[in-house]
């Protein structure tokens, strides 16, 4: 597969749409998401032909409104009653918060599945629609049970859960007349998961030991050795997590089979863990430093003004005290505006640089290392009906569990 799309264009698109989102108090975010997805999708070129994202901003807005109608009732009345019960029976808010949180979890999985269904229903390649079959509640219930099992077994079941849930999703995914099916088993994930476990052990064991030593349960003679273990354990854990993520995707993608008219397509994925570690580490450093630029600019500007007006910086208790700096070369309200710019600019920069230095390089690496096999049969694929989807990804949007892009 090819990737066609430069950081520069993505930067300006993300900056422009992000700024509009802030200026419209979040209203533009439905347009922002749509436009960014159009861009990302069109950069992905299986067999040289771009994917197309045809989702509409307006349907996202409507989906959000539908979710508001439904969730307003749930969040208002249910929260209020839970708080009341919690206070009257236990005289503490904790149980109420916990219960209302637990009550949202199934909804969370439901929303994730529905959001994936919406996005794929609005994705096309060679003019043919992708799609996901219904099954959001079944998915939510399975996810709940699997997560419970994973937590009870201290994470040991995670590969089994990952496989089962991914199989549930893939087995319900179609492209036109082509039906996908997840082959293989959770066994192919365990070799990669082992590195997470080793890293976790090397990190946690010395920490537990150190806590014991501090609390006098063990002697502190082995501290140096423990420190060494930590020095190995933490990088190993990071490597293990990335490897489990990347290699897991690889083996799962390679085990996907297709059937139906035009079926016979297969995947040959070859992403590299080392490359992904580099992207993640460098990307995080880049966005951290980049997001500090607006803060730095403001700090220097305000410092210069305070110095010029000969004012004692100690009198500034709150940002609004800037308004008192009236006699300087720059009026106070302008400084306050600058502070606002720095504040929102930091958020904006962070999200723009996340796109440019993390989302895009990660996606690009997966795309460039993926080969489509058996693509000569695709001419036989026929269209599927449009999946009308009134609520779009509204629930995911309202519950803040939207897709990464």
């Amino acid at each position, binding site marked *: 597969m090819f990737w*066609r*799309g430069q950081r520069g264009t993505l930067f300006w698109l993300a900056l422009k749409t992000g700024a509009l989102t802030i200026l419209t108090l979040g209203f533009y975010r439905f347009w922002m998401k749509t436009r960014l997805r159009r861009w990302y999708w*069109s950069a992905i070129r299986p067999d040289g032909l771009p994917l197309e994202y045809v989702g509409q901003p307006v349907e996202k807005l409507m989906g959000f409104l539908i979710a508001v109608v439904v969730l307003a009732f749930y*969040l208002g009345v249910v929260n*209020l009653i839970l*708080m009341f019960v919690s206070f009257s029976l236990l005289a503490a808010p904790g149980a109420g918060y916990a219960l209302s949180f637990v009550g949202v979890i199934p909804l969370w999985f439901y929303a994730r599945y529905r959001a994936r269904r919406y996005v794929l229903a609005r994705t096309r390649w060679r003019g043919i629609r992708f799609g996901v079959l219904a099954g959001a509640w079944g998915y939510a219930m399975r996810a709940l049970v699997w997560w419970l099992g994973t937590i009870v077994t201290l994470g040991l079941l995670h590969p089994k859960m990952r496989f089962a849930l991914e199989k549930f999703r893939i087995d319900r995914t179609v492209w036109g007349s082509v039906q996908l099916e997840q082959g293989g088993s959770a066994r192919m994930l365990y070799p990669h998961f082992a590195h997470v476990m080793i890293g976790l052990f090397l990190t946690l064991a010395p920490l537990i030991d150190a806590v014991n030593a501090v609390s006098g349960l063990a002697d502190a003679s082995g501290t140096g050795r423990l420190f060494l273990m930590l020095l190995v354990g933490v990088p190993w854990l990071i490597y293990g997590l990335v490897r489990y993520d990347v290699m897991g995707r690889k083996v799962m993608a390679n085990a996907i089979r297709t059937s139906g008219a035009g079926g016979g397509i297969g995947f040959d994925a070859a992403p590299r863990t080392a490359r992904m570690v580099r992207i993640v580490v460098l990307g995080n450093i880049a966005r951290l430093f980049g997001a500090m630029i607006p803060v730095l600019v403001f700090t220097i500007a305000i410092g210069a003004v305070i110095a010029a007006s000969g004012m004692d910086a100690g009198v500034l208790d709150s940002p609004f005290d800037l308004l008192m700096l009236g006699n300087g070369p720059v009026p106070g309200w302008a400084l306050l505006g600058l502070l606002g710019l720095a504040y929102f600019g930091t958020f904006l920069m962070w999200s723009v640089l996340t796109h440019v230095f993390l989302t895009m390089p990660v996606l690009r690496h997966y795309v460039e290392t993926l080969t489509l096999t058996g693509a000569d049969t*695709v*001419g036989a694929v026929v269209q599927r009906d449009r999946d009308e989807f009134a609520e779009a990804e509204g629930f995911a949007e309202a519950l803040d569990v939207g897709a990464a892009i």
Partner: protein
Amino acid sequence: MTTIRVGAAPETYSGKGLYFSGESAEATRAELAVDEAAGTLAMRLPDGTRIDWALASLRRVRDQAGGDLMVLRQADDPVARLVLSATEDQRILLARAPNLHRAPKVDGKRKLFAWAGAAVASVALMIFVLIPLLANNLAAVLPPAGERALGQTTFEQIRTALDDSGLQPVPVCENPEGLAALDKIGETLFPDEVEGFDLTVSVLDHEMVNAFALPGGYVVFFRGLLEAAESPDEVAAVYAHEVGHVVARDPARIALRSAGSIGVLGLLLGDFAGGAVVLFLAERIIQADYSQEAEAAADAFAFDVMNAAGRPASAMADFFDRLRAEYGDEPAIVQHFLAHPAMIDRIEAARAAQPADLDPAPLLSDAEWAALRDVCSD
């Protein structure tokens, strides 16, 4: 430089594109030409079929990455696509198709407005009808221990929300002599216990001129109010008024209502302003947006308490008159009273009705009064 010829002899244009019918995934090579007479882009497929797209109906698929391809569609056909890869072809279509950059039509606007209306209505129904109704009924049956816990939680939230520094909650003032003076006011006003409530009175080290009540018998003064008051009787009048709210369980209603509203408003504003919602609601509790009846009842309660204790109920009128003269209508507590002008009339009436010979001994000694006003210094 390439000249794009328009008008005379444009039929010489011929290009190539990939056509996708939207019915199958087959990519079909198409020979392109502009049919000047019909005003269409004519596509000739290898099997001889000719497909015509009106130039005016051509739309370019937007926000495409790479900049190498031009993907075309018709305004009213959602699936068929034509992909152009040659720069020359793209340039010619840019010149010839007049509406290339228009957004495809959005349908279902009426449905959108219907849902928008429904969303506004359901949120309004929740916040203004259902949640208050539920909160009022639940507040009446909340057991005392639960009400106290609710008050304690809300108190901590308010202390955090009011903090400007972002470091720690607004401190509670603890000067023992000042607190003793505050207790003395309480004992004068309420020699017997207030039925069903265990009063907890505190002072917050904050310059706001205000006081408020919280569920479960919490009465909270701001330092700013103690500094603005000129006599202990003025503080006592505010004290009695807030206890009036406690006894009527007004704060429990408001706190429960805000517990419900936080979820709904947080949902609407999304991740954009999680903290701002809490701040806003904390503000509302302090401003104590009680109904006119609730204010009248708290006032009546305060007058009774002041009269029974032999203190001048007119102190409240004096206090607010002076605050208005001094600060204008800005302090929250003045605003609060301005919302109910009838109450000021009633206070005036109370002042008139008060026995002219009422000349009580000072509520606090000068030393005690000074200590109270200094309660926030250690």
